[in-house]
């Protein structure tokens, strides 16, 4: 399909946001300073489980400059528990531990002082009397009958369990010629932005208004904050013009914000809480999925996959957080890009004495994709079919769209075969296979990784009612307002903050496209939450679709108004008018025209020239629901999850060092189809970055706990984020299949790269290991893990033939 010609969309244009950042003029939360601002430091639990018998704050309070020490008991009296996505009323979570600490690093008390340094000194003086308790850090052990209970009141460590059956699974397995099963493990990692979470709260006692500046990316954050603080919704004003230093899902410091908000109200002074790196990694509650997959697959002798049984056991950590729901979103792409007729999915969420999870890029989809792609490789291997060919035989074909999968979601559009072919072409697949053969002949462990993965996009919250029938939320709107001022310049307002996705560029480009005005001249502001229209923030890969759609809707409404003004003044029907760069003329007689300036003048100053009944000024807003959204799940759990489905095909070459277990990546190509790209540089950037993040999850990054329940990777020295040395030069090949559901055919892309890279790297490493008869189904495939695996096997030349 050839791309339609757009004026601004899809063209190389500098993102609007970049300039302030390169000048060092970004406005991050830690850059703000309010007069008389106080600083918070936290006292963290050294135990994975302990009863808090007493907290002696005397010595800390005696330190000059210390203003308050807050304990969990005090805070829990004055605030409501944080919301959980599940119906588990006995698993209550507050910003500070109440009565019992449940993981190492959990915040037990907060110290407020005139400087952060004093607060840290005082935090060390807070004397907590702990009674250590039995704990559990292994999710399977947590389900055993005698396991220590993380929340004794809840009566079990099981937070959620449901088995969904979609289609004739038992029959399909019984009828299949072949089946196989395996276990795959996705260890705990996260997005770990370079900026930690931070929040500043300031209470105006006269106005009864709490002002909040935060490094936030969270749906309904102002509402949840107000509820927890027992304030009316309009007593909390969140300033969304704060630049967020990376988020990718996790910047949801609701507990930090409730804590800072409470302290600001109580102390009558602005309070700032900026996590340090250790607070962030241990107690920031921003870990990601931690999953054991048990997979069984039924297939024919030709390699056609018929049915799938997938059991996903996820270790949520000490409180539910968003973890259980991250088992829900993958329901919307549970068969990946493949034509699989029936599926059984068992989702299990378990609580253990580990740090709490937050939403992580893809919301559970990347681990699921890893399990699915491992499955495809194993089927290929079992039958001796080429892995690419096997995928070709199972990919949904372009003429099958819209395609409804067994779990109820309909994929909007795609051409998976074409994207895969493009990626193979770009990589020079035959030459790559020859290179692998040559490397192997030279005694190297070389492999090629293949992965075909989906990115469900247009974020909806359909997993909420799916996992909690008491939650009937089916609305998940996004909004934009646009106005033209007296001078004729355009200002648009979006209703949430951004963390590097280029939303200002997105909105300006879309409005510029509709109105044919230069996006360069359009200003985009982030409204504060009281001025803003409803938003569900930049989650679920939704903003190109949802904010782009909202901006397009508002711009179209404005255009309709201007056309109506023109029609009235030119004495013609709108049907015979032409729109040219904001001016309007008669199609038949271009000399009869009204310029943009003239139309703006009429709208703002010449009420006598306005069509009867039209409101003066030039402004429009558009609030819209996620396309295909709005439905509740069926009794058997079928639901339309997200509306749009982007596709990516990864091909990557890797070599393993036999002695060190290190993986070196070579050529890496990603074929990518996210429909229309509003700004290609932004889309490509997120895809490169997502792939880098996926490389980290596949090879390096892990929140590792020792047998004592201690987090042993709580800094950048031991939690290894890939640098420019580890991330290869990736090539992206674009393909274009528009979505029929969106304003310009765009799909989401904020999770691109990350959704396929772990699967692709696992595929490459396994391809290399297969030459030794070895395999690995555990991420990250760290050098030490692979080294051990290799050490256990003699070199081929050392083996008897």
């Amino acid at each position, binding site marked *: 399909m050839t791309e339609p010609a757009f004026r601004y969309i899809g063209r190389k244009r*500098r*993102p609007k*946001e*970049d*300039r*302030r*950042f*390169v*000048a*060092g*003029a*970004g406005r*991050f939360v*830690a*850059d703000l*300073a309010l007069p008389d601002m106080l600083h918070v430091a936290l006292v963290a639990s050294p135990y994975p489980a302990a009863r808090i018998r007493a907290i002696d704050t005397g010595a800390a309070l005696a330190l000059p400059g210390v203003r308050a020490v807050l304990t969990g008991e005090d805070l829990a009296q004055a605030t409501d528990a944080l919301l959980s996505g599940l119906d588990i009323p006995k698993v209550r979570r507050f910003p500070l531990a109440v009565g019992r600490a449940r993981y190492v690093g959990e915040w037990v008390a907060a110290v407020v002082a005139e400087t952060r*340094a004093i607060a840290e000194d005082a935090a060390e003086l807070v004397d907590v009397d702990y009674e250590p308790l039995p704990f559990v850090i292994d999710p399977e052990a947590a389900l055993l009958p005698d396991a220590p209970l993380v929340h004794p009141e809840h009566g079990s460590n099981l937070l959620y369990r449901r088995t969904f059956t979609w289609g004739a699974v038992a029959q399909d397995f019984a009828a299949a010629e072949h089946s196989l099963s395996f276990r795959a493990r996705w260890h705990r990692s996260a*997005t*770990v*932005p*370079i*900026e*930690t979470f931070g929040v500043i709260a300031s209470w105006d006692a006269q106005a009864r208004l709490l002002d909040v500046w935060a490094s936030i990316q969270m749906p309904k954050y102002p509402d949840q904050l107000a509820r927890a603080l027992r304030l009316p919704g309009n007593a909390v004003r969140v300033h969304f013009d704060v*630049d*967020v*230093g*990376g*988020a*990718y899902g996790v910047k949801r410091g609701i507990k930090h914000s409730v804590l800072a908000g409470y302290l600001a109200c109580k102390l009558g002074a602005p309070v700032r809480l900026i996590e*340090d*790196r250790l607070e962030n990694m241990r107690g920031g509650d921003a870990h990601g999925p931690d999953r054991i997959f048990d997979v069984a697959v039924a297939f024919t002798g030709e390699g056609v996959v018929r049915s799938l049984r997938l059991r996903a056991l996820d270790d949520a950590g000490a409180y539910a957080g968003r973890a259980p729901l991250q088992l829900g979103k993958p329901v919307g792409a549970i068969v990946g890009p493949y034509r699989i007729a029936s599926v059984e999915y068992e989702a299990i969420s378990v609580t253990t004495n580990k740090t709490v999870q937050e939403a992580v890029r893809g919301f559970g989809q990347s681990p699921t994709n890893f399990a699915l792609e491992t499955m495809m490789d194993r089927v290929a291997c079992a039958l001796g079919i080429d892995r690419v060919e096997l995928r070709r035989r199972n990919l949904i074909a372009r003429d099958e769209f819209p395609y409804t999968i067994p779990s109820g979601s309909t994929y909007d559009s795609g051409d998976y075969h074409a994207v895969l072919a493009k990626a193979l072409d770009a990589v020079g697949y035959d030459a790559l296979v020859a290179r692998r053969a040559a490397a192997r002949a030279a005694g190297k462990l070389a492999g090629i990784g293949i992965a075909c993965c989906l990115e469900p996009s247009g974020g909806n919250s359909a997993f909420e009612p799916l996992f909690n029938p008491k939650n009937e939320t089916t609305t998940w709107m996004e909004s934009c307002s646009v106005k033209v001022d007296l001078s004729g310049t355009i200002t648009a307002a979006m209703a949430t903050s951004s*963390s*590097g*996705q*280029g939303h200002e560029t997105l909105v300006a480009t879309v409005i510029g496209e509709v109105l044919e005005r230069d996006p360069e001249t359009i200003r985009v502001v982030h409204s504060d939450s009281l001025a803003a229209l409803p938003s569900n923030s930049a989650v679920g890969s939704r903003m190109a679709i949802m904010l782009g759609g909202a901006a397009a809707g508002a711009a179209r409404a404005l255009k309709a108004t201007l056309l109506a003004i023109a029609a009235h003044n030119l004495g013609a029907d709108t049907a015979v008018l032409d729109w040219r760069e904001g001016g309007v003329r008669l199609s038949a007689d271009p000399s009869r025209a009204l310029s943009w300036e003239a139309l703006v003048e009429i709208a703002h100053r010449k009420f006598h020239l306005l069509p009867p009944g039209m409101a003066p000024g030039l402004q429009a807003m558009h609030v819209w629901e996620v396309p295909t959204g709005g439905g509740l799940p069926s009794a058997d759990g079928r639901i339309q999850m997200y509306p749009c489905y982007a596709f990516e095909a990864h091909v990557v070459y890797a070599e393993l060092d036999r002695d060190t277990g290190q993986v070196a990546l070579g050529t890496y190509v990603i074929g990518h189809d996210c429909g229309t790209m509003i700004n290609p*540089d*932004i889309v*490509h*950037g*997120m*895809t*490169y*970055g*997502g*792939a*880098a*993040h996926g490389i980290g999850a596949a090879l390096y990054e892990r929140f590792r706990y020792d047998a004592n329940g201690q987090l042993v990777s709580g*800094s*950048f*020295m031991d939690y290894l*984020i890939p*640098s*420019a*040395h580890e*991330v290869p*030069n*990736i090539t992206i090949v674009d393909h274009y299949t528009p979505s029929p559901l969106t304003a310009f055919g765009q799909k989401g892309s904020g999770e691109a*790269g990350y959704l396929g890279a772990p699967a692709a790297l696992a595929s490459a490493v396994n391809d290399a290991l297969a030459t030794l008869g070895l395999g690995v189904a555990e991420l990250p495939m760290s050098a030490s893990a692979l080294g051990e695996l290799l050490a256990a096997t003699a070199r081929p030349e050392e083996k008897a033939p």
Partner: protein
Amino acid sequence: MSEHDVTLTVNGRRRRARVPARLTLVDFLREHLRLTGTHAGCEHGVCGACSVLLDGRPVRSCLIFAVQAQGAEITTVEGLAPEPGALSVLQDSFCEAHGLQCGFCTPGMLIAAEALLRTTLSPSEAEIRDAIGGNLCRCTGYKQIVDAVRLAAERLRGSNLAGAGHD
């Protein structure tokens, strides 16, 4: 807590202050001088977000105490542009190549790249990756940062005024 006088030059401007011995240079720049372009990502010397030039060499300002910078010439990201409101060739190249997303690591990346381009205007890709290899970016996967530095080098080579807009 002992306090000390420190005098140093930051972005060409002489600064004098009395600071606690334990105050790090990054906190001094950010909190005392309100030069918030320099960021703190880890405060343990790994991420590079806090990089500044100290007497022309890139250093991690979270690992240095302000008092240790006595007499030094410091350049922060705010000091890269030739004049207020303008951008250096390097900064402009980051915009052109979109060598950033959230912008949090960007000041450190610019400092690392600036230090490289002061030593060579024909860096190979490996040299560029080496130069920024101690700076973590979670957004970009580094590709467009490498492109940006390469573009800046090209432009600076191309202009007969190599180094224009630098310093």
